[in-house]
């Protein structure tokens, strides 16, 4: 039962055996979501205050959530058990069982740099000030797999408006948490910790660039970047930095984690583009998690209408 790893300290005796789990799924379908809550609490799944709630499975079959192309959302279980989070481990299925130690409350995010009103926000305040909107977006990993994820969050532009960027601010730099005693992976000497990412200011102002605090309407699980992360759905997943501690407005294009690690392979833009290969891997196809056949990858991950205008006149093969 390794697969069902929950964040809270549920004794293994309380984790539902697979057979019962499946019958429960059938039952949930019959009973509907309202009934499900009662069933889950009867099963002894506790809701903890400090850690995000861990409802084991709220799959698209129950919720009917789809993206705007009509593809169903991946299950909560898929999304919380397959994570690229090198601060913990390079083993994607191993992240979920290692994130317990991360303390996500209290948590502060510093927004500074070329702004009129540099501010350090408590995440609690952010949650109150910027109510989460449901955003069902595709996430396309540079490794060639993808998911449809029902995030909850708000446009990054709203937070930036609060601090009033100066005219000289051309880029936004994001810095993720790097806490050695809570994140064992940051001991690796092969990476330029902390994780940093960047967007051009107009990209950051696009409505699709969101700060995410929820998944499936619940507080964002730690393995998915709690308490607050960036989501930039038209770019490869690594642009969407997790566990943000700092957002800086800067004049020059910032160094990023992957661009520093392998400059010729991970460009600053890293827009999803089936026609521009990673130097070593084709990006023409992807595996949607849960599907048997591979899919053709879509330009800008299917968000061409919303974002193509950001790049008019740019050679996207040069600016990969």
């Amino acid at each position, binding site marked *: 039962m390794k697969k069902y790893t929950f964040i809270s300290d549920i004794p293994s005796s309380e984790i539902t055996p697979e057979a019962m789990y499946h019958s429960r799924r059938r039952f949930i379908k019959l009973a509907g979501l309202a009934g499900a809550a009662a069933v889950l609490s009867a099963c002894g799944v506790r809701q903890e205050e400090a850690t995000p709630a861990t409802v084991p499975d709220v799959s698209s079959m129950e919720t009917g959530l789809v993206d705007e192309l009509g593809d169903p959302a991946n299950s909560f*279980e898929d999304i919380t058990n397959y994570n690229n989070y090198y601060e913990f481990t390079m083993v994607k299925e191993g992240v979920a069982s290692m994130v317990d130690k991360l303390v996500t409350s209290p948590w502060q995010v510093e927004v500074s740099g070329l702004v009129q009103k540099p501010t350090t926000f408590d995440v609690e305040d952010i949650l109150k000030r910027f109510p989460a909107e449901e955003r069902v977006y595709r996430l396309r990993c540079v490794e060639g797999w993808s998911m449809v994820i029902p995030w909850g969050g708000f446009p990054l532009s709203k937070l930036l408006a609060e601090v009033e960027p100066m005219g000289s601010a051309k880029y936004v730099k994001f810095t993720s948490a790097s806490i050695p005693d809570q994140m064992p992976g940051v001991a690796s000497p*092969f990476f330029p910790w902390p994780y940093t990412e960047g967007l051009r200011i107009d990209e950051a102002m696009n409505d699709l660039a969101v700060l995410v605090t929820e998944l499936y309407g619940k507080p964002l699980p730690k393995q998915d970047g709690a308490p607050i992360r960036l989501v930039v759905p038209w770019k490869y997943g690594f642009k969407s930095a997790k566990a943000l501690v700092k957002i800086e407005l800067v004049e020059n294009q910032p160094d990023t984690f992957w661009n520093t*690690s*392998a400059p010729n392979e991970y460009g600053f833009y890293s827009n999803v583009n089936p026609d521009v290969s990673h130097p070593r891997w*084709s990006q023409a196809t992807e595996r949607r998690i849960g599907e048997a056949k591979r899919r053709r990858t879509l330009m800008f991950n299917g968000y061409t209408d919303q974002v193509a205008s950001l790049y008019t006149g740019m050679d996207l093969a040069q600016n990969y």
Partner: protein
Amino acid sequence: MITELKRRFPLLLRLAVHLGGILPLVFLVRDALTDNLTVNPYQKAEQRTGETALVLLLFSLACTPLNILFGFSRAVKHRRTLGLYAFFYASLHLFIFSVLDYGLDWEIIWDTVLENRYIFVGLAAFLCLLALAVTSFRWWMKRMGKNWTRLHRVVYLAGGLAILHLAWVIKGDVLGLAGNVGKPILYGTILAVLLVVRIPPIRRTIVQFRREIQHRTAGTIKPPIREYRELP
């Protein structure tokens, strides 16, 4: 007890070799049946079979150096078995990639092969292993004579290509020591050591040094230890 173990050692070694060859498959099948290959099972299975093939190939390549370094001549008997197991996992790896992952969709596979140099070198490594596996039996050994030894030196090339395949598939830059580079560096170093030990002048020096030590510790002059020679 110890003498018993010593007597049984050849059998135990053979058993260990076969367990090493079979258990990874048993675990893979078990994890596939119990839904324990992550939510991206084909990729996980590709990674597992690929790494198993590489590790078994390194074990196969370690047999001769074990004899050179420690006079462990019995290891040499298991080179072929380990090599064939490595070939088996390499075949499984290719099968999962082309049939399960890419669904034998030749259009997509062709695009992928053209754009992915790691697939080129992986395929080259596989073809090397294929040639070695086909000619690994005594009949071919006799038939080919000296050419057999020459052909089977290709195993070094296969090892190098397999590591390049891994180095190119990971996220990061192996030469720049940046990224997810632990495994290619580890396996590459092991391969390099195994190859260096075989370089004739180095091999002779090591064998001579080892014999001297053995003579000195034994305090007597023992009959010369049978030195391993290239088969046949």
